């Protein structure tokens, strides 16, 4: 009796936890497992379909990168304890605003882009301020903005141009310094080198004969990588990151300890709007047009990617890297089903199933962390 009482270094009531089990208790677990499963499956069933040659990889990594960009914003916001359902409408709205400023009104494209960013981030802040001031669930407030923004995205071009698709953006952006930051490609020399070395295929015929089939890394993917790294750094390494966790974990306890919860939450709403606008810019300058139906359902896809990535819907827990893996799974499956020749409507079935599995797994992991039964 007296012996056990004196051993202060070890507590006999704390069971040793194996390194393996400890490695399991992390938000990214679901994302890592899912990624491995998905790649193995498609490696088996679509390995010969061209999914893993240069073009195929570019195809699914572009789609994944799209999901990643909005997932980073949604992830940080969810960890801070809030939702944004207006992301999809924001994407359509931002693209349309740029088209109207740059094409319809004929302003220089860089001005159009910067003003669009300003407008969208202000709307994000308004979302946040309404949620904080009224104390209403962000679910309802941003649902309202889902409809408000989508309505304006259809209404404004119809009034000005009598249509809901505005083209001619590529021509208007010719020679602009800012537009290529979203629509351009980089590292072309590197891909040329790969093509010359025979590592990736080159065009055999036509005007581009001799050029590699993939002639650069799209800025969309570059943005996705930048945002994921920046988001992960912000969340895990900075003071602000601690505030994000605290605000979502228990806003009242955080306030008692002096965390500026309101500022943190509003900043996260603005960040989400920023990510949605980046997405919209990349899309607009890639397609050369803006359409009123762009970004439909993206808010849910972002949230699903985040949840697959291990974040809790109730806030206070999650990982940007996990969300990025969730987005990768999403993109690989969506495009992989096409490569594997599976009926594409089954994608939705898959989505529902994986969402359910992810949430169940997350609940289990949380119980392990907090030791609840």
């Amino acid at each position, binding site marked *: 009796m007296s012996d056990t009482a004196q051993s*202060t*270094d*070890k*507590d006999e009531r*704390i069971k040793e*936890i194996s390194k393996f089990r400890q490695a399991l208790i992390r938000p990214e677990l679901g994302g890592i497992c899912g990624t491995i499963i998905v790649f193995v499956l498609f490696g088996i069933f679509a390995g010969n379909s061209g999914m893993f040659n240069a073009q195929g990889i570019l195809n699914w990594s572009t789609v994944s990168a799209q999901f990643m960009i909005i997932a980073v914003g949604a992830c940080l916001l969810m960890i801070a304890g809030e939702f944004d359902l207006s992301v999809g409408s924001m994407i359509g709205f931002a693209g349309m605003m740029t088209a109207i400023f740059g094409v319809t009104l004929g302003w220089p494209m860089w001005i159009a882009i910067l003003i669009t960013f300003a407008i969208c981030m202000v709307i994000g802040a308004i979302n946040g301020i309404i949620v904080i001031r009224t104390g209403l669930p962000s679910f309802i407030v941003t649902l309202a903005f889902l409809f408000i923004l989508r309505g304006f995205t259809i209404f404004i071009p119809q009034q000005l141009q009598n249509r809901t698709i505005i083209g001619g953006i590529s021509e208007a952006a010719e020679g602009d310094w800012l537009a290529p930051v979203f629509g351009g490609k980089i590292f072309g020399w590197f891909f040329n080198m790969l093509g010359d070395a025979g590592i990736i295929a080159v065009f055999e015929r036509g005007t581009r004969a001799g050029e590699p089939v993939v002639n650069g890394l799209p800025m969309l993917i570059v943005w996705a990588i930048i945002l994921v790294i920046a988001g992960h750094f912000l969340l895990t*390494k*900075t*003071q*602000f*990151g*601690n505030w994000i*966790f*605290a605000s979502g*974990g*228990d806003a*009242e*306890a*955080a306030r*008692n*300890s*002096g*965390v500026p919860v309101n500022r943190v939450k509003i900043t996260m709403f603005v960040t989400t709007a920023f990510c949605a606008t980046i997405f919209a810019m990349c899309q607009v300058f890639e397609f050369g047009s803006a359409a009123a139906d762009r970004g439909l359902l993206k808010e849910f896809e972002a949230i699903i990617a985040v949840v697959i990535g291990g974040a*809790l819907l109730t806030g*206070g*827990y999650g990982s940007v890297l996990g969300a990025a893996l969730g987005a990768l799974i999403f993109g690989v499956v969506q495009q992989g089903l096409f490569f594997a020749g599976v009926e594409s409507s089954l994608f939705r079935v898959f989505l529902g199933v994986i969402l359910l599995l992810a949430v169940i797994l997350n609940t289990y992991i*949380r119980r392990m*962390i*907090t*030791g*609840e039964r």
Partner: protein
Amino acid sequence: MADRKPIIQMKDIQKHFGSVIALAGVSVDVFPGECHCLLGDNGAGKSTFIKTMSGVHKPTSGEIHFEGQPMNFADPRDAMTAGIATVHQHLAMIPLMSVSRNFFMGNEPIKKLGPIKLFDHEYANRVTMEEMKKMGINLRGPDQAVGTLSGGERQTVAISRAVHFGAKVLILDEPTSALGVRQTSNVLATIDKVRKQGVGVVFITHNVRHAMAVGDRYTVLNRGQTLGTAVRGEITPEELQDMMAGGQELASLEGSLGGTV
């Protein structure tokens, strides 16, 4: 204790909420290194009183002297900066976050990288482990989630956090009311350790036995008024219990329950 000056003195504090008189002239003083127990039944005005002390409420009348100076706290942050920390029974820790992230929540150690304020994890982890060891809590590691700690351990983490960040007066709002026997004794032991470091502890409770275990002085509140302050050894638990109940009616009840209340 007579030669020392009280760290905080509350003189004849009144607090009215509209037509309700929550506090009708309460006087309490706390010396450094003592545990002053504030006892009272539900509705006695304990919460209003400590909220006045911690700057949440402004007194309707009365004076607060902190370290000999008249004080007028505009908000809880003011009181916190001055060195008055409140540990609430709930709302102190975030279960999903690690102990070290919780410990430094709102007071993060900063390492500058240009304009970016980095969270100094290395420092935070080291200090957390040291402080927890002092309080007798064995952590698996600084990244262990607070959710895995027991209620008593969470209170202890919250208390040692307040002391680490320079609390001179520590207000504990019913820290033991939801705890089991073993956990309660851990928290009481923590209070004892903190007191020995020279912190003035205000221990709110309605459990006379918990108060008797660590208290140096006892003040009983009843219906917004002080029924006097007693020094340890000059009062019996039964007398305290009677004062809290505000009369003798409990005495007969207690008799029929065999002294178990």
